[in-house]
């Protein structure tokens, strides 16, 4: 008889099953466009190979009396043609299914993940391996030597970390907003991985338990709070009191007919957009956020002068606290701008946002956040509250939090894939299901893609966004998923 291994869901991830709704299933999609029609049979083989290497992805989500927990399963994933909407629901209570799916349509391969399982960076590791395994099969002549492949290291593993972000912008915290994922192999890393493997062969069960552990508890340096406080130095200084919070402008609109996520995507060459951000002396994320505020201000009658717009920006904590966990490991930073109180040009707004962001994205500030996360994780009272009550509380917290946000943003940064995937993948895509307008940024091979998602049918803010970019002389192309009845009328599925 099989005793399945399991790991309880950490507090950060617990918000996702609790806040999941018909409108926002808490699913995100990462995609890649290859230079040929996708071969489903080869993709299936590649998926099987990748699946073997990522024990976390074997998990199903279950409900206990006090916690949700991830349990190992024997389910096998299957590649399917894309027949559902972008970010279609993945997790349904009482139904035991894998928490991710791989779909293909024409030249695109997309990975969709339930957010309780992993975050964008974690999912990118999986997609990277999937694309590498697929292109190796599709273009056998271009693969590296076979013995090299046998020892290939999982991206994100301690032997193969993402490189630190490049210095962008003029502010000290600017790099926190810009990530770089150079997921290429490295022979030194192979050597070490190979040695460790031989010394300690581990079973699938052990792998599962290790990989499914909450990310905050995998940070070794953070285990000793005293050492950290000594290292942090001025940690004791309390943060400056916050200015009274103004009412935040919120975008409203017409819900899509079957609650599907409205997904649009703008793609463009990356260099000129980076040039625009650099000219303003800010990181790309903040520049694009400022453009988003401006686009909403132009289209939303409710957003008059004097209204405050706020965005939540996730920061990948792996950049600061080395962790090889693919589980959720991020903190969000809220930035805001009030219009009508000075210079409202996108450049000035971006600089203001950058300043606020940089103040919070320092290693010291993030360390404090990390400690708060660990404390909450170990807080006894949080443990003995039964799960349904926990879910209800988290759902309320999520709701209150949503009220103070206009938009949400996520930037996965620049991705570099290993050969032979790098030369056969063009644009990449990134979408997150959302209860409010959101945009997600990813760049690969000089192509920058901005994925817009929203629960509403209105697209005026994307139109203004695109016009702001094209007015700056950037060549932009749009791809959209049909959403409304009129858009779908008379189109062959």
């Amino acid at each position, binding site marked *: *008889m099989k*005793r*399945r291994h*399991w790991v*309880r869901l950490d507090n950060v991830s617990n918000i996702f099953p609790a806040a999941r709704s*018909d409108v926002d299933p808490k699913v995100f999609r990462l995609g890649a*466009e290859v230079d040929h029609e996708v071969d489903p049979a080869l993709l299936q083989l590649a998926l099987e190979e990748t699946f073997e290497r990522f024990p976390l992805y074997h998990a199903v989500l279950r409900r*206990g*009396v*006090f*916690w949700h*927990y991830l*349990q190992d399963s024997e389910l096998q994933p299957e590649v399917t*043609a*894309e*027949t*559902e*909407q*972008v970010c279609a629901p993945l997790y349904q209570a*009482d*139904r035991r299914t894998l928490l991710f799916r791989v779909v293909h*349509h*024409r*030249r*695109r391969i997309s990975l969709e993940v339930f957010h309780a399982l992993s975050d964008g960076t974690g999912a990118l590791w999986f997609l990277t391996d999937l694309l590498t395994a697929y292109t190796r099969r599709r273009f056998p002549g271009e693969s590296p030597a076979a013995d090299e492949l046998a020892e290939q290291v999982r991206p994100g593993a301690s032997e193969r970390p993402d490189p630190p972000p490049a210095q962008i912008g003029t502010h000290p915290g600017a790099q926190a907003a810009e990530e770089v994922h150079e997921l290429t192999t490295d022979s030194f890393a192979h050597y070490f991985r190979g040695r460790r493997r031989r010394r300690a062969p581990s079973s699938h069960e052990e792998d599962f338990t290790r990989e499914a552990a909450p990310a905050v508890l995998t940070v070794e340096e953070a285990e000793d709070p005293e050492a950290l406080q000594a290292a942090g130095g001025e940690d004791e200084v309390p943060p400056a009191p916050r200015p009274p919070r103004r009412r935040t402008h919120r975008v409203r609109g017409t819900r899509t*007919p*079957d*609650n*599907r996520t409205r*997904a*649009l995507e703008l793609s463009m060459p990356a260099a000129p957009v980076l040039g625009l951000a650099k000219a303003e002396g800010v990181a790309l994320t903040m520049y694009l956020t400022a453009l988003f505020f401006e686009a909403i201000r132009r289209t939303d009658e409710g957003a008059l002068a004097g209204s405050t717009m706020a965005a939540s920006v996730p920061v990948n904590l792996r950049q600061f606290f080395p962790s090889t966990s693919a589980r959720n490991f991020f903190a969000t930073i809220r930035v805001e701008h009030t219009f009508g109180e000075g210079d409202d040009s996108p450049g000035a707004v971006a600089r203001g946002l950058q300043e606020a962001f940089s103040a919070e994205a320092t290693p010291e500030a993030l360390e404090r956040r990390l400690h708060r996360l660990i404390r909450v994780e170990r807080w006894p009272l949080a*443990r*003995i509250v039964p799960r349904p009550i926990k879910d209800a509380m988290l759902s309320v917290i999520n709701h209150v939090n949503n009220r103070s946000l206009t938009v949400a943003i996520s930037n996965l940064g620049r991705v570099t894939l290993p050969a032979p995937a790098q030369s056969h993948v063009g644009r990449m895509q990134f979408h997150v299901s959302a209860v409010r307008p959101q945009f997600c940024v990813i760049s690969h091979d000089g192509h920058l893609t901005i994925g817009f998602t929203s629960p509403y049918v209105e*697209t*005026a803010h*994307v*139109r203004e966004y*695109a*016009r702001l970019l*094209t007015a700056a002389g950037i*060549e*932009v*192309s*749009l*791809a*959209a*998923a*049909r959403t409304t*009845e009129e*858009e*779908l009328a008379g*189109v*062959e*599925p």
Partner: protein
Amino acid sequence: MRTCAGCSLRIEGEWEHCPLCGGALHGRAEPSPYPAVPLRFSRRRVLRVLMLSSLGVIVLSFLAQLLFGHEAESLGVLRSVWLGIATTWLVVLMAVSKRRNLAKFIVYLVVAAGGVNVYWDFLTQWSGWSLTYVLPILCSASIIGLLITVRLIRMELADYVVYSGLTVLLGLTPIVFLSLGWVGVALPSVICGALSIAVVVLLLTLRGGAVRHELATRLHL
């Protein structure tokens, strides 16, 4: 690729009009990177409303019985028919909502049907028939039903072990009532209790490890 002059955008896919501004497009269309997914009208909201309003009607119809008192002899038949329909409807609702886990459904069934019968007995002058006959028979039948279900349907042990345990524990309650002297005829309660104890012993000796593992998982603090 098509272009929209108004937005100065290139548009991918076979769009007649610009998805952003609705303006006319020029150029040759090429296949869209996104499939056209037909609308799926969700019935979930309708089902949820039906479910909640049904539950409301059922609870109200049970509560309404209290208004009529015990003596109303003429109500006898009508009351039984009414309660019978309400109970059936309750069981149907539970079966629908717990359809993915039969073992869980059996636990719900025992609790709901047992509760309704005791209430029914109370309404009809409390002669104790529910405790003497209905509860022991219901509990024994559900234990046997569960044993058959897990044999017939491919179920993973982890999925039913906790609910089997609960069903068996419920099967021990007639013994409690017997010892308290609330029961007229002892035989049904004795049979039910013996059956439950036999199954408990079997479960713990054959599947003891699995039971402990599953309980540790679900009750993990």
